[in-house]
């Protein structure tokens, strides 16, 4: 996920267009800024980790229930 890429630049950009783009868009709306400037990763607290895992387990379990229902439905 560390991969970066460069979107192709517009073939011909006039000075008016450049000025217009810079005036109309906020700095981090520019594609080149978005591509090279990402949000830093945050550290999860133990409570957040527990919540994440609890909901993941809930989801896996409930998907099992759905599969069971389909299986009984088919039978």
């Amino acid at each position: 996920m560390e991969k970066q890429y460069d979107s192709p630049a517009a073939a011909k950009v006039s000075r008016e267009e450049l000025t217009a783009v810079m005036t109309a868009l906020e700095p981090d709306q520019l594609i080149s800024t978005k591509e090279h400037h990402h949000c830093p990763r945050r550290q999860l607290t133990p409570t957040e980790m527990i919540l994440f895992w609890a909901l993941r387990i809930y989801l896996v379990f409930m998907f099992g229930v759905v599969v069971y229902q389909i299986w009984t439905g088919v039978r």
Partner: protein
Amino acid sequence: MKETKTLPELRRGTVPRSNLLNNQPTSDAAVVITHEDIDRAHDRERVSATRARRGIRPRLRLFWLLIGPGILVMLGENDGPSMLSYAATGARFGVGFFVPFIVLTFAMACVVQEMTVRLGAATHRGHAELIFDRFGPFWGWFSMADLMVGNFLTLVTEFIAIRAGLGFFGVRPAVAVFSALLVLSVALITHRYWTWERIILGAAMFNLVFVPVALLTHPHWGSVGRALVTWRPLPGGLTQETVLILLADIGATVTPWMLFFQQSAIADKGLTTHDIRFGRVDTVLGAALATVAALATMLATAPLFAHHMSAANFEAAEFAQALQPFIGHWGAALFALGMFEAGMVAAITISTSSAYAFGEVARRPHSLNLPFRQGKSFYLVLLLEAVAAAGLVLIPGIPLVYIVLLVNVIAVLAMPPALLFLYMLVNDREMMGALVSPRWANVLALGVVTILVGAGLLFGISVIAPNALALVGGR
């Protein structure tokens, strides 16, 4: 060849601004202007010019320029499986408990989607990108897997609705599905987010076709009003079937793809923090229109309940046929057309949400402003997912209604983990600054999560130990 200019050079005569995400100003390194930037800047220029003018007409024009993602996401979620869930609800329960219940589910959708408006406008990033960046690839891939599985299953059901809706007019399944793929592709030819949005908005308004269908059934408005304000108890108590319908109706309004779609669409449209108020109005208006269409669908099939007809074996087109004695051929045709439209608009929005999410995590260009050559992976993911789902629908012998209801149930089950990501992102002061959720919004969001987890657990109990439903007031 890339044409590069330095930021100070480009900003000559303009005031540098910094976004809440980038508290530090953008570096003065060379900047590449892309085709996508130019298109988005043109859209933003129109917004700025309109905002600068005073009066009612400029305000209305500003509203017109800024609405879109909210209405699209809400009417897009009134999709094939959703309309079928509402139709099954009307046919099975008539007018009563579910009238206020459906209004409540759309209120829940408003609470959730409002958070994506703020997040998208403040960060200019899509939902998948923020999850990957902020929580890392481990949790990011989990979230992507939930989205992709859910989106693919839902897309299958959209093509079921398309097939069934056109089936009413005698269109063969293969022709119906191929025509839908053609429409989906044509909408992309514009290569402009703005044009694409207006076309799909126009198509989405057709969702209201269920209103005249409902009027043709001559509903008893007194009963509807009473049901709305008194919220009568669930008829027959909690049973396995009622729990399934309850979950299907919740899943018809709040699903993970909506979070990803609206935030990405807001970033693609170029909305900023100045536009959040309009984003909220857009979302509430979308929810109001979708509520009207959902209630109309339920009212339209209520005669089947009044005449003690079973909905158990009805599929989308069969609902239309079953209604024909009550609303005539034209009414039934409108109902079938509505099913087609619901499937068509959702097929477009859902496949777009997958393409946005894929582009964001694979770091590939992802915008409806991109020409095909520059956004190959974006358009290919969008089209290939739709083609795969459409192909599955042509396999004979698929139990349609059952699949459709279960898809909505799966959406409800996948929502709590998706909402946790959203809740944490929108409360991330580093990213959101002053736009973090206020306490009341957090209370509402936690209320929605509690209802969703509770509904999921109720579904689990109804499947594993149906007799235990008696403990929570069922039988």
